[in-house]
């Protein structure tokens, strides 16, 4: 127990938490519908796809990298798993695995180009973003895939806690956050991610196989995008080749709001979950208040700048 108490986050990283709490307090005074289990379950459902993508994004940003291809990889995964299951007659479970593999492959491609060809992550993923987008459009004929088997929709199903309906997808997302938390905190490969992000050369000199760590991170992130694809399919009930178009920037927004440094090596996965929730809470709360959606976009922009400014400020002092 004491061990975990020692690991309590420093006061400065409580910023995102406070922002989320203040936002919730504000919205609960504005709409009597805001503060209910049903509404929070709804917000969690709405953010679960970006939420899982943002886990992968966090891992990559911790290594001082970035991934612009995540949304497109997710869209590819969703089209692969739905088309395999409906048109190619593959068993739904197997189709899901094929989708996960397609996404992991995109991650492998990113990782290989970053480590073996030594290209900057920004450029690599900018390239793969376009390549994967084009492949997805061609493969799907830009058509939405419908009439899915129930197995693919499982994570969109709900169960009850009291009066509240909760989707299995939400539980999966929260579970993944918990797993990642342990992974980053209590395992050697997890700690290596921080080491590589802090100073790649120093990490290499201490005997960490930095290229292997990076490659693993990109592949793991790819796998996570595949899981996000499964959640997206379950949530929307279709395989959508147009999905994920803004998810790269949305996931980076969440990571930054959560206090993870874009320069690598500093940050926590719990912060990302809070960052994801902040965006979801604002979108939901402002809609309940009847505020037009352009202002929601504006608020997100202001929050991102505030978050980075806070990061700069505390970093200089600390």
């Amino acid at each position, binding site marked *: 127990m004491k061990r975990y108490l020692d690991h309590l986050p420093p006061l400065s990283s409580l910023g995102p938490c406070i922002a989320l709490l203040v936002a919730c307090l504000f919205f609960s005074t504005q*709409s009597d*519908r805001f503060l209910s289990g*049903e*509404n929070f379950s*709804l917000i969690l*459902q*709405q953010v679960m*796809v970006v939420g899982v993508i943002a886990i992968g994004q966090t891992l990559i940003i911790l290594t001082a990298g970035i991934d612009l291809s995540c949304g497109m990889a997710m869209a590819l995964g969703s089209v692969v798993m739905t088309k395999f299951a409906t048109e190619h007659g593959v068993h739904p479970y197997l189709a899901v695995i094929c989708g996960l593999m397609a996404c992991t492959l995109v991650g492998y491609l990113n990782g290989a180009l970053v480590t073996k060809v030594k290209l900057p992550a920004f450029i690599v993923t900018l390239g793969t973003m376009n390549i994967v987008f084009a492949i997805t*459009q061609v493969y799907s*004929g*830009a*058509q*939405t895939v*419908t009439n899915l088997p129930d197995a693919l929709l499982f994570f969109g199903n709900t169960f009850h806690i009291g009066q509240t309906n909760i989707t299995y997808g939400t539980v999966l997302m929260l579970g993944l956050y918990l797993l990642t938390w342990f992974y980053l905190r209590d395992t050697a490969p997890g700690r290596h991610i921080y080491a590589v992000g802090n100073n790649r050369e120093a990490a290499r000199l201490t005997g960490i196989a930095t290229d292997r760590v990076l490659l693993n991170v990109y592949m793991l992130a790819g796998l996570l995008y595949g899981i996000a694809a499964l959640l*997206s399919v379950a*949530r*929307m*009930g*279709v395989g*959508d080749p*147009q*999905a994920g*178009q*803004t998810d790269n920037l949305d996931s980076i927004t969440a990571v930054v709001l959560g206090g993870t440094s874009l320069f690598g090596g500093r940050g926590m996965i719990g912060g990302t979950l809070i960052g994801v929730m902040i965006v979801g809470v604002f*979108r*939901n709360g402002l*809609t*309940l208040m*009847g505020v*037009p*959606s*352009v202002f929601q*976009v504006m608020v997100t922009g202001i929050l991102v700048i505030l978050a980075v400014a806070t990061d700069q400020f505390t970093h200089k002092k600390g």
Partner: protein
Amino acid sequence: MKLKNRVALAVLTMVAGLAAAADQPIIGLITKTDTNPYFVKMKEGAQEAAKAKGAKLLTAAGKSDGDNAGQIAAIENMIAAGAKVILITPSDAKAIVPALKKARDQGVMVITLDSPTDPQNAADALFATDNFKAGVLVGQYAKAAFGDKPAKIATLDLFPGHPVGIQRHDGFLQGFGIKKGDASIVCMQDSFGDQAKGQTAMENYLQKNPEINLVYTINEPAAAGAYKALKAAGKEKSVMIVSVDGGCDGVRNVKGGVIAATSQQYPLRMASLGVDAGVDYIKTGKKVSGYVDTGVMLITDKKQKNIDSKDSAFGLNACWGMK
């Protein structure tokens, strides 16, 4: 007024507003984007109608055309906010269907504005332009203008698989009296309804086939792009552009001779009819169903014989705003 008084007044107004809001019918309007003037007009129409009927209007939009997830979240949030009626312009005709089903299962009436769902009966009703007819009108106009002169046609369409784009395109072909794959169609490409993409596509068309003399465009921004490309190539006088949409900028381009003719549609009317039907449903429980044609009119300043049309003065007066 002192600051304190101002604050007090603001609080009072808010409280009064909330109290008045208690029994107000709530209607949600979800458009494809916030930035396209067409949807801005639609929103204005809905807001005016809601004000007149004493209803509260919630609005939301996708981040970009094709943002299905954003529209789904908007539907859910609006239902959470107490909306009993959702007016929506679906970004993806097929992908939105499961979300609409969920909403309707909860007793929400769904009216699609401007573009249908696939299948169309996934919503209670559709208030829209007859897009096929809109295409036919400009096709007939072009045919009357060309007569027996051979046409080399380029089309700037919407994007792959979109029903509105397909209906207008097919309507244009029928109006012009040709079938798909006709030899007179020399170029076909998607412009995404965007001026810059329309211009690029037209520039490339002219490289491929300098003889083009008739351009059909999905909307007037694409037409404006095509015109810029034609002008740069010195062909703006010898090539006819016809379009669909009827926005104010578009009609100005008809007046200025950039576009020969355009089919004008009326999003403001779609929205106000939608709000009226919505308030009616909330008050009486009476649903609307099926397709309601919100009208289309050919706008041109170079009238052709036997083709019914109005001039740009009428078009400017009615651009997207006629009720």
